[in-house]
């Protein structure tokens, strides 16, 4: 079964440093998402991306965050200057376009980001 691949699985970074989280979507999927889960809390939407543009973003997704798909394969989430409260599990998810029928997402296995 096709998978969404996320790298790295765990990253530790110093506060104030930039981090880039990477996701390789399933090849025929067109819609891409990032979600965040702070330990023990619910999963929160960050951003959706389609046709090389942001479709929707949440209040969490401020100027410190950016997304891009520079080479047509990797879908990346960049945090410019990390804060302690950015420590969380970050999930990439992708979705196919199936004639208006919504089968839900395929999630990656997540990147655990620890800011120290």
């Amino acid at each position, binding site marked *: 079964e096709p998978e969404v691949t996320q790298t790295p699985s765990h990253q530790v970074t110093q506060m104030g440093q930039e981090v880039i989280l990477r996701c390789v979507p399933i090849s025929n999927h*067109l*819609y891409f*998402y990032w*979600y965040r*889960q702070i330990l023990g*809390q*619910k*999963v*929160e*939407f960050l951003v*959706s991306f*389609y046709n090389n543009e942001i*479709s*929707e973003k949440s209040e969490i997704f401020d100027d410190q965050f950016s997304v891009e798909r520079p080479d047509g394969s990797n879908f990346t989430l960049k945090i410019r200057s990390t804060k302690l409260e950015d420590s969380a*599990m970050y*999930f990439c*998810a992708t*979705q196919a*376009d199936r004639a*208006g029928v*919504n*089968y*839900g*997402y395929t*999630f990656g*296995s*997540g990147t*655990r980001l620890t800011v120290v």
Partner: protein
Amino acid sequence: AQTVTQSQPEMSVQEAETVTLSCTYDTSESNYYLFWYKQPPSRQMILVIRQEAYKQQNATENRFSVNFQKAAKSFSLKISDSQLGDTAMYFCAFMRGGANSKLTFGKGITLSVRP
């Protein structure tokens, strides 16, 4: 805006027994989907079951089934013949119809299956 409420933070069930996890939601959308996701200790998000709002028939996937009450905006998950591997966090989630829609999650419920 949509909201998803899971009011039970934890539940426990004996192996081989049946357990029901509750979820309610609020929306003004007429076209939407509801999901249950399982998150084991590995923290992977695994789709358990999916329900289209326009379908009256409750979805089933092997030991997992839902009780979808559209008028009451209720979407509970029933796990039959519980297994130790069912121990996990379970999230109820809402998505409006159409592609490129975000998922709105509930807070989740921790299910423990006792041997």
